[in-house]
């Protein structure tokens, strides 16, 4: 494999091999939140005191106490159990939504930038159309037609989410393809596919990774919003957004039902935002923090 472009390999910028260090308190906080979330998602079912389907009518809307540490909700469901299981839904949906959007977006964007012409026009016009929908509206529209399910949420978020990566990858490819190492690779007889996937995309990976890190809390928030609207997870599935929705009906008598899943969500989003900042600073040392 490597005999095709020894020069290119040497001249190529070693983006991926650059050291990665967290330099700020916020970065460590973000990493802590991320690790905590992953652990909760993995171990949630063993950590939670009840089953998410468990119904205990005598405990309906009970305040936080010894039996239910974070209180109980409608039909006596355990809030702590639903918060722990909700972490799993959040993480899984956000992970797949981000991965699918990034792969689709980066590939289409890189192709548009590399091939130019009609492909470029076509891809970028589709991007324009999708960006004409404000915020979460398109995802609402799609899930309203397809119905609530985890797969449909992932589809809706990917369908709307890939545009950012496409723009970014296209811009990166447009500047990178004129670099000397790309010309060197071409002179040595590398084909388009090899240049695109071995030279251009790896060197565009830094900004794409930064974008993905910031998109992650966005996807978590979007899933929660859709579930809050009744368009995300199917009824009964533990999700932070769905639990807040349930809690809004009992704000006076049982504020804890809405309080705790929302806190978990806010903390998660905050942590991942900090982590995004840290990843950006680590991958882009040229950027001076003001």
């Amino acid at each position, binding site marked *: 494999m490597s005999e095709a472009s020894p020069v290119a390999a040497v001249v190529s910028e070693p983006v991926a091999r650059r050291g990665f260090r967290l330099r700020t308190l916020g970065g460590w906080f973000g990493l802590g939140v991320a690790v905590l979330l992953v652990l909760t998602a993995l171990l949630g079912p063993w950590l939670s005191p009840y089953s998410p389907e468990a119904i205990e009518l005598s405990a309906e809307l009970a305040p936080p106490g010894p039996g239910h540490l974070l209180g109980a909700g409608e039909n006596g469901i355990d809030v702590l159990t639903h918060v722990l299981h909700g972490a799993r839904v959040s993480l899984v949906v956000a992970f797949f939504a981000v991965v699918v959007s990034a792969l689709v977006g980066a590939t289409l964007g890189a192709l548009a930038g590399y091939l130019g012409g009609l492909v470029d026009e076509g891809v970028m*016009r*589709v991007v*324009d*159309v999708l*960006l*004409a*929908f*404000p*915020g*979460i*509206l*398109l995802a*609402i*529209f*799609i899930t*309203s*037609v*397809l*119905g609530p399910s985890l797969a449909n949420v992932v589809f809706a978020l990917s369908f709307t989410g890939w545009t950012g990566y496409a723009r970014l990858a296209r811009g990166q490819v447009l500047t990178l393809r004129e670099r000397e190492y790309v010309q060197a690779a071409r002179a040595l007889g590398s084909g388009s596919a090899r240049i695109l996937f071995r030279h251009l995309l790896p060197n565009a990976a830094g900004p794409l990774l930064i974008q993905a890190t910031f998109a992650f*809390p966005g996807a978590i*928030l979007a899933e*929660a*919003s859709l579930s*809050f*609207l*009744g*368009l995300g997870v199917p009824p009964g599935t533990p999700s932070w*957004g769905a639990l*807040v*929705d349930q*809690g*809004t009906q009992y*704000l*006076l008598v049982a*504020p804890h039902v*809405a*309080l705790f*899943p*929302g806190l978990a*969500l*806010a*903390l998660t*989003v*905050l942590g991942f*935002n*900090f982590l995004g900042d840290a990843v950006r600073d680590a991958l882009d040392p040229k950027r001076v923090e*003001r």
Partner: protein
Amino acid sequence: MRRAVSASIAVVGALLLVSLFLNLVPGDPIDVMLGEQASEVDREALRRSVGLDQPWYTQLWTFTRAFVTGELRTSLPPFQKKVLPAIGEALPKTLLLTLASLLISVALAIPLGVAAAARKGTAVDSAAMGVAVAGVALPRFWLGPMLIIVFALWLDWLPVSGAESWRHLVLPSLTLGTALAAFLSRMTRAAMLETLREDFVTTARAKGLHPRVVLWKHAFRNALLPILTVLGLEFGGLLGGAIVTEKVFAWPGMGTLLLTAIEKRDYNTVRATVLVFTLCYVLVNALTDVAYTLVDPRVRRRS
């Protein structure tokens, strides 16, 4: 001109997507919408009213013509009301809500961001940016209920929900505007730090002008362009966020109209509201472009 062309392409594309999305659903979309147990009569009625018994180009033409002429009717037999009057009632409410939250976020963010930039590195700066960082992370559908608990249920200062008076507007617009306020104050700070480094600021200071005059008349006016850019771009976020906020406060706007229509499976209203939202968004983005040239003569010369 180029802007106008790409905006119209976006609008036409959105129209295509909205009117034909049903055809892209795997399987029979009527099954998805009504469930497989629905009676044959209901299924046929819905199929006809959303136009699925027609080829796609007829569907597109029928929907577009009905939408433009205001003849579009709800897709729920037997009482097929016109969609346009409902939108005419809901749209001003949503615009009122978004504009109020835009004003609130500007009123909060600009003093906060300017103060943080003017006292960079001090406790004021850290406190302001701490608030800003937290504000971005608060989900609206959670912030809203928490504000209701504190200001409506405990303190009893403001109503829980509805849209009868200006007092009903306070909590929804705070809920909708907080995230933008937080983001905008960071942008304001960054833009101010940029302009405070410029030579003309140093000159103004050297002339012995009052620091406040330098800060607002020299630095702030030049920091306005990036702030305006952000405002225009984020307005769409506000429109989208209004859907969630309206549900929390039972605010009778476009979001409530859309969600009720989804619940009732009134597909024509869903399509029409989504399209109107999109038109508003595209229009605001176009207006933002115009606003640039008014604020910054340099942009006018360049284009």
